[in-house]
């Protein structure tokens, strides 16, 4: 049976020590501790940037989202309640909401046909062109998914999060996330197959 590796995760929210450590940092941030905030930024920026980048497919937009999300972690630190969830879960929820808001105002335009004209600047032109072509077709297909589907795929396949963790970030139930992922995967497969057929 298949045994694909689970993607590695940094700053795993499942690790209680790391999680409680971030909660302690949040308590210090409430008191205006800039050093604690710097530590929190180091702990969250990587996962936040990956999630935003994969959800938006826009590097500059992803950096903006993480910047705003981190700013909110500083300005709204007093509103964090450890009894209601983890620091990472709260941060992810802010990032996802910001991404979805951004996607509502900026519609990605990445037609599949555009992938036919991808040039390569890599040293090995043929292999790089093939890889670029495959990559561009996949990115174009991903861009056609709904933003929530893309965010869920980014968290499940990119960050290796559980259904419960994704549900917390997306303000949904684990069952709803399972359905969301199922529809996203089915739609992606259809897009790829229709692209292959043409």
């Amino acid at each position, binding site marked *: *049976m298949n045994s*694909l590796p689970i993607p590695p995760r940094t700053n795993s929210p499942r690790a209680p020590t790391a999680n409680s450590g971030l909660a302690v940092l949040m308590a210090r941030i409430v008191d205006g501790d800039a050093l604690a*905030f*710097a530590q929190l930024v180091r702990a969250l920026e990587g996962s936040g*940037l*990956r999630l935003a980048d994969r959800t938006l497919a826009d590097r500059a937009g992803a950096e903006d989202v993480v910047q705003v999300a981190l700013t909110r972690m500083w300005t709204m630190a007093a*509103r964090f309640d450890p009894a*209601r969830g983890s620091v990472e879960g709260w941060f992810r929820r802010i990032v996802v909401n910001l991404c979805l808001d951004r996607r509502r105002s900026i519609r990605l335009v990445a037609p599949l046909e555009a992938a036919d004209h991808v040039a390569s600047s890599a040293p090995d032109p043929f292999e790089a062109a093939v890889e670029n072509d495959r990559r561009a077709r996949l990115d174009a297909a991903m861009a056609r998914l709904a933003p929530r589907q893309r965010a869920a795929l980014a968290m499940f396949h990119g960050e290796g999060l559980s259904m419960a963790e994704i549900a917390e970030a997306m303000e949904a139930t684990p069952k709803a996330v*399972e359905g969301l992922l199922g529809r996203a995967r089915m739609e*992606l497969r259809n897009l790829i197959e229709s692209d292959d057929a043409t």
Partner: protein
Amino acid sequence: MTNERALEIIAGHGACEARWPDAERAAVLALAGSDAVVAAALVAAQRLDAVLNSWVHDVPQRSFDAAAIIAAAAAVAPVAAVPPVLQPSVAAPRRRPARPAMAMRRWLAGGAVAVAAVLGVAVLGPGARMPVAAPVAVAAMSATVAAATPVAVPPVVLAAVDSPAGIAISTNTGLAGDAATRLAVAEGDAMGSDAEVFAHVFTPTVYEDELI
């Protein structure tokens, strides 16, 4: 484990059994070994997993400047301007202290309407209990208007006034301090005309509704 549930799990979680729900993993695996449809779905999910694994390539990282973020946050005027996000129930309800002049107008207006209502009931309704209920209500309202401050009416007085004077009960229970807070919260920043004040003063609570 039904065929449909196994297909749901594979569709949502993919082909990697380590990601399946712990309680259902063994059953899905068993079904995949005996059901051709489930087995085919598993093979298709493996291909899609490979595609998705290639999609989640490494994202170039960037270090964000915590000091710059703090400085930028300080430069942006009030923190309250930031839209509320997440853990919404943590936020304290907004309360605006009532201005003395507004409070006086509110109680005067309330008292006038209460008196009118009680007199109306006394004239139109069955008269047996009105002689008892109306004076109690009027007396309580008069005292309140004179004092111009919220004064709690003794429970025994309220108990003596029964349903025919329901409107009076409604206004009387609004004398307590918690009711003033309730009004202030309800008004928020939107307190405007006298009509709005009336609407707020005479919007009964659930408790008052039951009494009425």
